[in-house]
């Protein structure tokens, strides 16, 4: 039986208040610290729910330019220009956005510049929307066939270390590296909310 306190969460006012405050996942803050430490100055993004917190942190930071993209492939070209101009960048996207990048990733392979992608997965763990599954299930293969080194993380406590290592690899070896942040970390999308 719900206690009086927990029952109060289901009042309309309580629901609204809860919807406003998206509890910051600690792993997103940890990624942000890693990006700062890696001197990332341009962050291209097409929003994904899983990246909400990180995007907000980037937008609020004075030393980072958060660059809204209309499609993820723009980010591959953006970061070539950034690197050519002496700045480090990274790209935030949902797994479906990987499909938008494929031909453009030829730039990263051919020009050999450090290219870090942080991909929040859908169609992966407990997915409810069948339309997310095709791209989610081919994300890793698609990236690998485009010459991108892929590193997976499926436990929140490993996120910071994995992103740190991926950044070190990308900037140390001038190569494209993607971190796939598993849906298990991001959590189920709650379809009852709508």
């Amino acid at each position, binding site marked *: 039986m719900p206690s009086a306190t927990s029952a109060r969460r289901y009042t309309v006012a309580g629901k609204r208040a809860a919807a406003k405050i998206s509890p910051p996942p600690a792993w997103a803050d940890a990624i942000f610290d890693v990006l700062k430490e890696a001197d990332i100055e341009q962050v291209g993004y097409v929003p994904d729910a899983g990246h909400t917190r990180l995007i907000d942190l980037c937008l609020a930071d004075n030393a980072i330019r958060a660059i809204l993209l209309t499609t993820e*492939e723009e980010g*591959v070209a953006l970061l070539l220009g950034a*690197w050519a101009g002496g700045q480090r960048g990274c790209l935030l996207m949902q797994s479906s956005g990987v499909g938008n990048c494929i031909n453009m990733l030829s730039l990263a392979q051919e020009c050999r510049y450090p290219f870090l992608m942080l991909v929040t997965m859908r169609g992966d763990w407990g997915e409810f929307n069948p339309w997310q599954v095709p791209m989610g299930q081919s994300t890793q293969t698609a990236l690998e066939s485009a010459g991108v080194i892929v590193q997976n993380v499926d436990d929140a406590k490993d996120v910071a270390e994995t992103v740190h290592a991926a950044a070190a690899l990308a900037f140390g070896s001038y190569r494209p590296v993607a971190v796939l942040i598993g849906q298990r970390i991001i959590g189920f999308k709650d379809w009852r909310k709508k």
Partner: protein
Amino acid sequence: MARTKNIVLERRAVVARILAGRGDALVVTGLGSTTWDTAAAGDTTKNLYLWGGMGAAAMCGLGLALAQPGRRVLVVTGDGEMLMGLGSLASIAVQKPANLAVCVIDNERYGETGMQRTATSFGVDLPGMARAAGFAETAMVRTEKQLAAIAPRLFAAAGPLFVAIKVTANPVPMVLPPRDGPWILRRFRHDLLGPRAAD
């Protein structure tokens, strides 16, 4: 055919004329003909030639312009290449880089692949799209006089600027710049950043 009438400007002369006034501006080219045009005007370490990634040129220019706010950045690309990256007009307009200009050499054709018609030959108005996106200044250029007026602005006016220049589809000789991507990028960075390029 339905090609826009009264096209008189020749692409090689147009690009040479624009680049003659570049000073120390950084130039990004779109795959294909605009890369050859830029090379024909004189190879320099301040040119970042793209040989692939159709649709990349304008966004590559944005990343460069944001990284180098003290330098002018000019993107020289084709109408077909720009049409493939139309979303970048929105992305650039949001960032408002004052030091960026995008110049489309508009022959109303996919020249590289056999002169098939592009959407601009049906009247699609690229500068109009850039204006609607929020570019600070846009122009459609058809004459020598208009070209003379806009050329210096590409390197001086507050951007982002977007200029489309209507050019003929007359054949031009092939002039190829270096094509090794890592080399093009590294020599560009070395010229721009000095020893820091090896970081």
